[in-house]
């Protein structure tokens, strides 16, 4: 019978788990240059892992902050009184979550093969080029002058376009779709995302209204009692 502490230590010193993690993480480098083959094996051959996917996702969020903070001020000017790094990260994370959930919800109807976990892993792997390109790009930006800003902007945009193409192939392979069906699916996913965002806003608006109602009721009662 193992103690909790022992289990805790085991969890973090499990050599095999680390090997699996690094192997699946390393596989991301194969995926980004062989998207079709790579994404197929990623889910169908279980060569990716949730841990590695989450690692890439968190790395991407940190990259976003890293880019804003450490790119030379010549290219990105930050008003630190107005910028909230948490909100910047949410600007990537929330669309990502909504995309994955909406895509999974749609593809279950469009007989896609992927589960929610598959879509999550594949989408996260598709974001690999972003940290891979942007982190060196940010460091190099500090050795550039304002006239050379084109390099910086080009590589940043390049990483995003690369990621976008990977997203498309990820959806295609995970659900075993044809290219036409993938495009249609992505189109519907974008519409679906808009619907989800609308519903979320409506939901929070109603919740806050309801909250305000009960709060005013509470205040009314308090005033009557005293």
């Amino acid at each position, binding site marked *: 019978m193992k103690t909790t502490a022992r289990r805790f230590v085991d969890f973090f010193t499990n050599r095999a788990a680390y090997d699996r993690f690094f192997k699946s993480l390393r596989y991301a480098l194969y995926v980004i240059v062989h998207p079709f083959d790579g994404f197929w094996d990623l889910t169908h051959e279980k060569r990716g892992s949730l841990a590695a996917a989450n690692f890439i996702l968190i790395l991407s969020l940190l990259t976003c902050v890293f880019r804003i903070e450490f790119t030379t*001020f*010549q290219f990105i*000017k930050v*008003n630190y*009184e*107005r910028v909230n790094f948490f909100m910047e990260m949410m600007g990537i994370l929330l669309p990502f979550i909504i995309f994955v959930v909406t895509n999974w919800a749609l593809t279950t109807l469009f007989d896609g093969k992927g589960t929610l976990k598959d879509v999550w892993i594949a989408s996260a792997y598709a974001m690999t080029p972003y940290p891979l390109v942007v982190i060196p790009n940010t460091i190099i930006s500090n*050795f550039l*002058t*304002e*006239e050379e800003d084109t390099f910086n902007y080009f590589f940043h945009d390049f990483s995003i376009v690369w990621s976008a193409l990977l997203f498309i192939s990820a959806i295609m392979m995970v659900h075993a779709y044809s290219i036409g069906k993938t495009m249609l699916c992505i189109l519907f996913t974008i519409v679906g995302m808009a619907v989800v965002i609308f519903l979320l806003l409506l939901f929070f608006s109603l919740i806050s209204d309801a909250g305000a109602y009960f709060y005013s009721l509470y205040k009314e009662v308090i005033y009557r009692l005293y």
Partner: protein
Amino acid sequence: MKRLAVLLALILVLAAVSPAAVTQADTGYSYNYDFWGEVANSPDPYAVKATLTHIELGLDKKLSKAQGLFVKDNFIYICDTGNNRIVVIEFADEEYKVAQIIDSFEGAEINTFNSPSDIFVTDDHYFIADTENNRILKLTKDLQFVLEFTKPDDINFDQSITFLPSKLIVDGADRVFCLVKRVNKGVVKYENDGHFNGFVGATPVTYDLFDYIWKTWIASDAQADAMADFVPTEYDNIAVDNEGFMYVCTTNFYEGSLGDGGVNPIRRLNSLGNDILIQNGDWYVIGDVDWTDVGVYTGSSRIVDITALDDGTYFGLDRTRGRIFGYDDQGNILCCFGGNGNKDGYFRMPTAIEHMGHDLLVLDSQDAQLTVFTPTYYGQKIFSAIYEYQQGRYDRSADEWREVLMLNGNNELAYKGIGRALLRQNKYEEAMNYFKIKYDDDNYGDAFQLYRKQWVEDHIVLLFIVILLVLVVPLVIGRIKRVRWEVKRFENDSKKIR
């Protein structure tokens, strides 16, 4: 107990003394805009030197609806529009005294003025916009009629409108450039013999695509007539700088286009009528960058008059909030000060601004007074820093900017000025620091490029070694691995053979 009493007495004395000290230092509301468009408070660049009403000047009656102001050497000319006269004030021995009152002249049919609204004085002549008499007068200095410029008898000039010249300037060859009420084709230009020569510099016509489509195809004729026409807007005022270029300003524009440079309330026209105003600042030359509607003071700044100083700086007078905005020759905002109110240095209906040296004179038509501003120590330092820079004495300019920075740590131009001087002294790293503080990426880029070049030249050996290591080390490692692998394979093979 005794100690407490002493302390109390001390506090009382301090309390009695300090308000005087505070009021002396704090005479106005002066500010500037930082890189993010937020207000950065600043010391007063200008202080009131004198306010001149009819009482101080010893005039028989109050100035009435005074519109025009002109300064030549040490003479100030006020068009006392409502009283149909021109008051000439001489500035001598630090005093402002009435030198002459012009209300009539000799040699024409009508020898008096009717609502004169502007005057321009050359070495030999007066040029007066005699608005309600529909003419511009050219008089000699001893008030003899020379010439009048009347409504052009020309097909380009709309004959249906009454000719009401309001503002004018005169160039070196005695050619008149004037603004006429309800004429929107630009500045009306006359030859020196009184012939109409055409229009100069109409504002570019702006309209958006939606309005165009709506008006052309969707609206009925009656609706289209009721909509605003797509025509140039009228100028409100005109001034001339020492290089002979015209500054014109307009108050008719759509506020929403100010922020993106869609409209230019202040324009500097060359002889072809093109806008050559330099706008290299963080903000367009629009007066207030950010504004809040408070009470009756709503909307953006509306510049009603400009005066261009000899060193290329120019000052605009804002009608909305009674403020004065100063810019340097690159379009960087220097200062904002003044306001609406009844204190000295505040206005109720400012109509005209002029300069005498670095002093500013503002005419207020409703208060019927002339306010004279003179630069404070802080203002003088800014001007001398600009002057030294223009003279090419960059180090001295930087010293002046350092003085400015002591008085106002918010001053953007001071940082840039010091940075530029350091750059010329090849102190790249220090220059970069100054530019970085104020987000001046152009200058920072230049400084950094030089710094980088120098760094590479200084560290060329180190760089070579690093590059060599980066290239050689993997090769060597690869070679060693290869050798080991081959040795191992050889051993394995030889085992098999046995």
